[in-house]
């Protein structure tokens, strides 16, 4: 791995990001980063400086976990970044707090604009600081309809839909 990537990982560790290298063959991305809500913009800025482009922003829903130390609403936002010049893909994931608000990165990556509006349509996650958070794919009258929210019975806990925490490299 060359300098930029090393630099980036070093930065992430320094800043207290939770970054883990992953097995590309198995998961299709190289680095997994868990962000807190405050780190979302910081991360995007650094990624932009280093020449990453935003692949997509998507949401998903798991069982809400109101208990400490990490209370969340059950909604999460996935950001995927990749590079033009080499094969490197980052998945960053942030859990949305109970207020359902997460900072928008649409002023850093203008391409995130539509992705965020779409995520708002499907999950009702509010991207604070977004300049125009109107329904995009859904109709205007369906502001409160969020089709991808699951029924309580179908929800699973975050652990049940994550890779086992043991590093997958050990499967030799």
């Amino acid at each position: 791995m060359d300098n930029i990537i090393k630099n980036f990982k070093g930065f992430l560790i320094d800043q207290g990001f939770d970054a883990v290298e992953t097995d590309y063959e198995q998961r299709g991305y190289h680095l997994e980063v868990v962000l807190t809500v405050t780190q979302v913009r910081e991360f995007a800025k650094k990624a932009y400086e280093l020449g990453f482009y935003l692949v997509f922003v998507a949401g998903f829903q798991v069982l809400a976990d109101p208990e400490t130390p990490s209370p969340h609403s059950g909604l999460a936002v996935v950001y995927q970044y990749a590079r033009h010049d080499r094969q490197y893909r980052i998945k960053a994931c942030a859990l949305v707090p109970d207020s359902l608000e997460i900072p928008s990165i649409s002023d850093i990556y203008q391409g995130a604009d539509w992705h965020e509006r779409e995520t708002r349509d499907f999950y009702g996650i509010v991207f604070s600081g977004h300049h125009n958070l109107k329904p995009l794919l859904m109709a205007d009258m369906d502001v409160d309809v969020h089709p991808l929210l699951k029924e309580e019975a179908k929800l699973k806990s975050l652990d049940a839909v994550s890779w086992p925490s043991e590093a997958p490299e050990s499967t030799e």
Partner: protein
Amino acid sequence: MLESEYQEQNRFFLNMGPQHPSTHGVLLIVLEMNGEYVLDPQPVLGFIHRMHEKMGESRPCPGFMPNTGRMDYVCALPYNHGYVSLIERKAGIEVPERAEYIRVITSELNRIASHLLWLGAYLLDLGAFTPILYGFDDREHILDILESVTGSRLTYSYYRFGGVCQDIDEKFVERTRAFIKRLRKRYGIYEKLVTKNIIFIKRTENIGIVSPDMALRYGMTGPNLRGSGISYDIRKNEPYSVYPEFDFEVPVGRQGDCLDRYMVRVREIEQCLRIIEQALDRLPEGPIRSKVPKNIKLSPGDCNFAVEAARGELSYYLIGDGTSTPYRLKVRVPSYSNLSCLPELGRGILLPDLVSILGSFDLVIPEIDR
């Protein structure tokens, strides 16, 4: 001051679409205009939103297969390819080499078909009626070839987890080779009729310049990105299937105007032909489908697979929960990100230029709306 007041007074809105001839489907663009100058184009999406992602989450993974081709009906096979590869990666299914070769051949044929259709449609946007029918003439040969092996002409659903559903035969190879020969002979027609045409050049050169930085900010991919001079092709940069075994180039443009995007696509057709030729030469013998468990279990955890569709990077992102139904399936479609730069790109240009830019993006609306 006076001038800006005058400008303010002369603003008006124009609805371009959803039934406008050059929005290629049901896309509405609300144009804020001053005379023939576009001040602010705002695309309005969702007219044919079908919530494919929800469908993906509500049925076992093989059931979503036919849906993938419906998103981008012009270039359905790469969509199939991405989805089957995703499930194969997730469930750890091996694919026989012959099947991968067949996938590459058919996907590339489909890509050419898509580019030919785009070429004609773009010229139609610019007001030339004839190239689209020449494009259709060539495309029809591809569809015939693909029909002979996949059984359908547009939404193929041809790939299966662990292989493809039907083997190709000698006749397919023969027909494909004949087609390659034929298409190479037809380059002259397109060059004389379109590429060299002074009116065409004037309509596309220096129009809609996408700078590399802008492409990066909007996450543009595919020929639209390569037109800006960035050599980024998932087939090269993040090789999947058997693409690393082939020798092909990634054509790039100079400055990212409509003409560059056009040239990139036209030159890409030749590269596709090269890939197909090499694949046909090296086509290995063997099975076309590996043994796959009847009930594919998607283990917990997420997984991503990106392929190069005709319009750019197509990413499937899946979260599994141990059952055979995906817990979450996100489809990242290329045109969505490509189109999102229109409000910035289309500021202060003429209406005909907007049509030219829209055409050069090669939009397929069902893909954007999903």
